[in-house]
């Protein structure tokens, strides 16, 4: 080890593998995805994988994917709910892998809602 910079570089790289273990402090955005039988049948797993991939491509580290059971609107599965700290949850329905990617690019990174895919719009805007 020759310098602090060299150490910090290793740290950056290594952090990517362990960052999801730091979800406890409550600072990150939670992305819930319905993985009940209905969700899986509707393709939730493919959506989930696409979202994971996009997070990696975009190098996003403060979004934590949490699976939940059926969200109670089986007809609109796969469903994705976004919980940002201090904000009202936003729910998307019929989230195909492609829409999943758009959620990361548009919603998470640019703060833009995907109006066409909203399941329920809460009164608060992000």
């Amino acid at each position, binding site marked *: 080890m020759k310098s*602090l910079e060299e150490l910090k570089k290793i740290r950056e790289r290594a952090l990517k*593998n362990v960052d*999801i273990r730091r*979800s*406890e402090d409550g600072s990150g955005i939670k992305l819930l995805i319905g993985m*009940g039988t209905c969700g899986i049948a509707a393709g939730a797993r493919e959506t989930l994988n696409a979202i*994971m991939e996009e997070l990696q491509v975009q190098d996003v580290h403060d979004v934590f994917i949490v699976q939940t059971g059926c969200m109670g609107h089986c007809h609109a599965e796969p469903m994705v709910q976004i919980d940002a700290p201090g904000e009202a949850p936003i729910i998307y329905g019929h989230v195909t892998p492609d829409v999943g990617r758009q959620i990361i690019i548009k919603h998470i990174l640019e703060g833009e809602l995907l109006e066409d895919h909203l399941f329920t719009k809460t009164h608060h805007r992000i």
Partner: protein
Amino acid sequence: MKKYRLHLMICGGTGCQSQDSNEIIQALRSELQKKGYEDEVQVVKTGCFGFCEKGPIIKVHPDNVFYIEVKPQDAERIVAEHVIKGRIVKELLYEEPTYHEKVEHQGDMSFYKKQLRIALRNCGLINPENIEEYIAVDGYLALGKVLTEMKPKEVIELMKESGLRGRGGGGFPTGRKWELTAQNESKLKFIICNADEGDPGAFMDRSILEGDPHSVLEAMAIAGYAIGAEKGYIYIRAEYPLAIHRLNIAIEQARKYGLLGKNLFDSGFNFDIELKYGAGAFVCGEETALINSVEGGRGEPNAKPPFPAEIGLWNEPTCVNNVETFANIPPIILKGSEWFGKIGTENSKGTKVFALAGKVNNVGLVEVPMGVSLKDIIYEIGGGIRNDKKLKAVQTGGPSGGCIPADKLDIPIDYDSLKSIGSMMGSGGMIVMDEDDCMVNISKFYLEFTEEESCGKCTPCRIGNKRLHEILERITMGEGTIEDLDRLVVLGEMIKDSSLCGLGQTSPNPVLSTLEYFHEEYNQHVVHKHCPSGVCKALKKYQISEEKCVGCTACAKVCPVDCISGEPKKRHVIDPKICIKCGACFEACRFNAVVRP
């Protein structure tokens, strides 16, 4: 590399491994593979979560779900339910003993709520066999900062300001010890990490070494830089094979990454570490005895002064610090002395790890800020006393400490307050006792230990502790006299005053403190030949109460020596000359008619 969406952290500490945590890991991996999820879910073997009694433990990230008492056969449903469908396996959740509710998240469990983890910060969070995971959580950043931005004097100054005191038992200010060692000019100096951990109830040092070995290596290098030493030794008991294994891996990885060895961070500073194995004698944890043992001599203490800071290993200035002390150092360097100084009490800064054991609902390793009350530890973190019994006393400090009675539970624990009530912080053993524990027996247990562990170098300790033990033995056999109680005090004080090392200087504490707080119980033993908690077998007298006995014959049927006589539906009687005091009749009687006065 693909990013894993779920991390399953499985405890790989000594406690959980002995309960099949390795098999659980294998079962999970093969189950994930079978279902085609091995690329989405990472299975990580970590260090101890502290909740050992409920192990093996699995923590799931990022949902923070905490499973307890997992068995290899549970792997299937964890994968089928939690991994695939996102459904929590309720049966594996922890249930709060006080209000009988299942808890999902670690942070919501009463066991963890009042804890503050500094020394144990990475235990359960990282894979201890992977240096990059340690680096990811700011590992070796403190060493880098020290070597590139600070002078040795500044490091010592920072440590002094932080107020950190040694966690090995003595509570000596760490910065001051470094300063004393740094002041002694010499080409050769040494850092020693004391991992002897001889207190029979303590296992925090083992858990740190198993769960976060790099934090100790990093801190030793920082200490080496501060005092001017290029060589460190870790003195560890050979009975800790897993800790030794993890340390060896960690040292090798650190060397490979250039974090141990020559010219670290291009600063010109060299530092390397070697392990030395101890045979596990309690006295070898005393620093001068430890140094003798590292040199290959007998593990016997020397008189102090001279202190190791002047004349230590191979007669060179040596700084001996405890494992937990070291584990606190990197965060202090990174976050500053002010941050650390805000935690704890006036003269005891930071946190302390305790091995909570005995009659509490939740036993395990707990790390709390200094100044927390015993009551909080026992009733909040510990979840109260088992089976709703009454708390009688708390033993802290192991064989060097004392028993604290129930009416003193409100005191904030730190080095000084514990001392003021006749106990000690010691290395952090904490044993909770209830009404079924006999205080005379407890002190006898500790004296048995010290008598066995005394190195025999000085008379007061070698002979004195033997006599103390004999007197206690006499009392528990019903042969003690009221004069014996005075003898215990006189002899105990004498041993404390005249012994050479800390072992003898503290060994009478368990007796003296129980004599002070539980005098009546001793009196009952010597005057009335009665053991109120019914532990001392020789003092038990089983009798059948005339009023309560209905003559159901249940007792007579279970008595192994047939010493209970009586006709059915008539009062039964025990023949005390034949009775072997086994207690079977006491358990068998459903009318509370058998009494042991």
